[in-house]
């Protein structure tokens, strides 16, 4: 899909249901699991969503989905090296925010 203009459906019902199921079941499993798994489950959901929308998303969104987000390793919050984990997550958030700023500035203009 071309980068301009952004918009249009990027997820079909089957893909949305799959993510919905994951999120609801993750809410349940997290009750019993160690808290260190919480960020991992959310990031896995984000990666699955990104994987589903990438083929129909704008070029910039696809670059984010297939780049820094896809590269995030499936790691629980480590007992040692927690600061590094948080720093990497902050960097991912910064990259996301930069993409959002560009994307929505274009969409709102």
């Amino acid at each position, binding site marked *: 899909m071309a980068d301009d203009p952004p918009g249009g459906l990027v997820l079909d019902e089957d893909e949305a*249901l*799959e993510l919905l*199921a*994951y999120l*609801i*079941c*993750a809410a*349940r*499993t997290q009750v019993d*699991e160690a808290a260190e*798994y919480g960020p991992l*489950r959310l990031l*896995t959901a984000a990666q699955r969503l990104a994987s589903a929308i990438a083929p129909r998303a704008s070029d910039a969104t696809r670059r984010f989905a297939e780049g820094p987000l896809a590269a995030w*390793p*499936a*790691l*629980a919050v*480590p007992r040692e*090296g927690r600061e590094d984990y948080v720093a990497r997550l902050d960097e991912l958030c910064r990259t996301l925010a930069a993409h959002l700023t560009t994307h929505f500035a274009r969409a709102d203009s």
Partner: protein
Amino acid sequence: MTTTGNAVLDAIRSRRVVRAMTDEPVPRADIETVLDAARWAPTAGNRHLQRYVATDDPTTLHLLRMTAPGMVQRPTAAITICTDRALAADFGFPPDSAGLHVDVGTAAATLLLAAHAIGLGAGPVTSFSRAAAAVVLRLPDGWRPELIVCLGYPAPRPPAPMRGRARLTWRDLTVWVP
């Protein structure tokens, strides 16, 4: 050390949790070989309170994965270890008895080793909705799904380990007492 002893130890040491699998189907006969091994897993009192639900159906596997946040891999077969809670109650086990979970563990270890022995990759999953899995797998009343063993062929490039950790030796995990 006997040849058999060496083979068993080699299998124990070389087995790994497989978190990325190819889409190559697992032959039904291989799944049955793994299931047959589970029958030999030690159980408390030789009671055999565990039941096994096997599937290689793509739709069932897809549904199972949707409701199992811990299922990172895309298996082409899966064996769900269940506990027959009604049968356990008949033996006098309280619902939260730790012994029932121990038997799930011995069954899982046996399944993982059996899969490894015949060249399959296997990965255990405990992070899944028991309620949803019971529906997806059409479990009889009283059967509680406890652990899913994913089966498939290991992908050429596995993902990074779930947790970076220095290699432990048995000495790190053991204390001697007089």
